[in-house]
């Protein structure tokens, strides 16, 4: 368990930051200031924050189409990240990558919008780390949808036989876009499916940031030390629709309400108050600070220019 109240408060701050950042992103969409699409992370913040809290700065993270939380938890500059979402030149990829494909190599972060695809890239990065005898590990976030993609299973098997330093973190939010896992697989415990490849697997409550952090802290030393890959399933729920235009006709409002009661941020707020004796005003203070920080990020992104159209041909080839 986390012993220090400040550590728990820091996790709270990071989760709430992601939540409020995305609320701002949603608002910017309604104002027409972000073009394209977005897949929100609302309800899953505990996973990114819990996992990334146990990583070293030079550990690598690969992410998915639903990657805002992963990026911010990995420590990407929020202003530059927002600029990327807005297609601005101060974005990490000068607006070329957008919400689903952001890469910040300096931050050891790479996302790809193909289901399970970046986890294959992550497996290759882990192979390089092993061959170069580095102590870095890779965390590849995937969703339940990737559990039915062939390339992901190939990569999982390869990581197992080669004992690669990688942790696959599967955020099982029950829905691959609109389709419930009950429609797409017989075995509902995803860590059991992964276990068939002969690697260590765990399942954890994905809305319990302290449990996730604890779990990662327990396993990461072994992965770093060459014991081979680990698969961690975090059971959670996507409170938002799949993407910004999803009317959520495939599930009930009652089900959504049930999961809102288990909201990871509310849950940690409760623990902070009950176990660590923070009072409400202290939590409000955190929220007010985040508001200010997000304002800075918004200002940064807003003041950034769009890339020059003449740059369109740059970097097709190295």
């Amino acid at each position, binding site marked *: 368990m986390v012993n220090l109240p400040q550590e728990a408060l820091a996790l709270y701050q990071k989760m709430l930051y992601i939540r409020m950042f995305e609320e701002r992103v949603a608002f910017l969409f309604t104002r027409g200031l972000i073009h394209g699409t977005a897949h929100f992370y609302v309800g899953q913040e505990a996973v990114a924050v819990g996992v990334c809290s146990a990583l070293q700065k030079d550990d*690598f993270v690969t992410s998915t189409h639903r990657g805002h939380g992963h990026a911010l938890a990995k420590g990407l500059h929020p202003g530059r990240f927002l600029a990327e979402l807005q297609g601005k030149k101060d974005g*990490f*990829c*000068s607006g*070329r*990558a957008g919400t689903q*494909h952001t*890469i*910040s*190599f*300096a931050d050891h972060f*790479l996302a*790809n*919008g*193909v289901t399970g*695809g*970046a986890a*294959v*890239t*992550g*497996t*290759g*990065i*882990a*192979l*390089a*780390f092993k*061959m*170069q005898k580095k102590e870095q590990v890779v965390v590849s976030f995937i969703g339940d949808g990737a559990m039915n993609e*062939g*390339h992901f299973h*190939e*990569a999982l*098997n*390869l990581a197992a*036989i*080669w004992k690669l330093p990688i942790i696959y973190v599967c955020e099982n939010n029950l829905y691959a876009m609109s389709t419930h896992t009950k429609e797409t697989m017989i075995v509902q415990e995803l860590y059991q499916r992964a276990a068939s490849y002969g690697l260590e697997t765990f399942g954890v409550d994905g809305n319990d940031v302290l449990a996730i952090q604890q779990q990662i802290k327990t396993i990461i030393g072994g992965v770093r030390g060459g014991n081979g890959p680990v698969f961690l399933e975090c059971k959670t729920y996507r409170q938002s629709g799949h993407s910004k235009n999803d009317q959520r006709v495939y599930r009930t409002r009652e089900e959504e309400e049930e999961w809102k009661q288990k909201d990871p941020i509310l849950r940690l707020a409760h623990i902070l108050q009950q176990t660590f004796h923070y009072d409400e005003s202290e939590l409000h203070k955190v929220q007010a600070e985040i508001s200010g920080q997000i304002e800075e990020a918004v200002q940064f992104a807003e003041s950034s220019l769009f890339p020059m159209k003449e740059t369109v041909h*740059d*970097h*097709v*080839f*190295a």
Partner: protein
Amino acid sequence: MRTISYLEAIREAIIEEMKRDPAVFFMGEDIAAYGGAFGVSKGLLQLFGPERVRNTPMSEAAITGVAAGAAIAGMRPIVEIMFMDFITLAMDQLLNHATQYRYTSNGQIKVPFVLRTPSGGGRGYGSTHSKSLEPLLQGIPGLKIVAPSTAYDAKGLLKAAIRDDNPIIFIENKLLYSKVSEVPEEEYTIHLGQATIVREGSALTLVSYGRMLQESVEVVTQLGAAVEIIDLRTLRPIDIALITASVKKTGKVLIVEEGFKTGGLAAEIVAQIVERCFDYLDAPIKRLASEDIPIPCTPILEQEVLPNKSKIMKAIRELL
């Protein structure tokens, strides 16, 4: 000068580059103790050990995607896809991942790896082990494609490809593996993106690559005709400058390829010629390619589908 086979030239290139640069490693199916389905990597395991000569499961998507990931993190993988027909299993990792990362990252990363694969028919292997899928790969931004026709070119181009900082598909026609030609002992590389004139002529420009290039050379030699033969060597990007210069001289064009005709490489070359030097053409451009038919096993039918010497001869005669 000494002579070695196309296969030996490829093996030499791999060995030399692995000795030169510790970041280069090799992986694929049955490439270690077995030495690869066609024997290209025989002896590599003994030379470099299992860390750098990695046998993989039958997992083309993972092999390709993992190569891209390792390349991003500083390695220079060479991978072998046992038959070009199986490249479809790796397609997503090629076109949605490996070839996109550099551009979408705005140049933050590079993805240097070479995917070697044997292509082509003529051995009676049937529809899943005989195809030349170059056309399928033409429309992938960020990808380079190389297809040598001689042992000399195979060695020089492969060494250049391994040193290049981009994802590259290196196509080796199976029937060329045993073909012997002069290859110097001294080190050399050949620039990617440069075609070459293998025979000068004034009456017709014949553009080809790989095995069909060699078939064409034999036919033209036999005919003694004034045909200028261009070996593309690199299929992406196409060296259109060399082709148009020749077309302006000859006024007639025949393009010979082993891939399927519809949407083939020739279609792209024709379009570029027409865009650049339409006024110089004295006759309609002719294309010779495989028929749009799955490649059958039995030799009598397979020969009907693939281009061959007699079809090339007929096409040249029609144009001259």
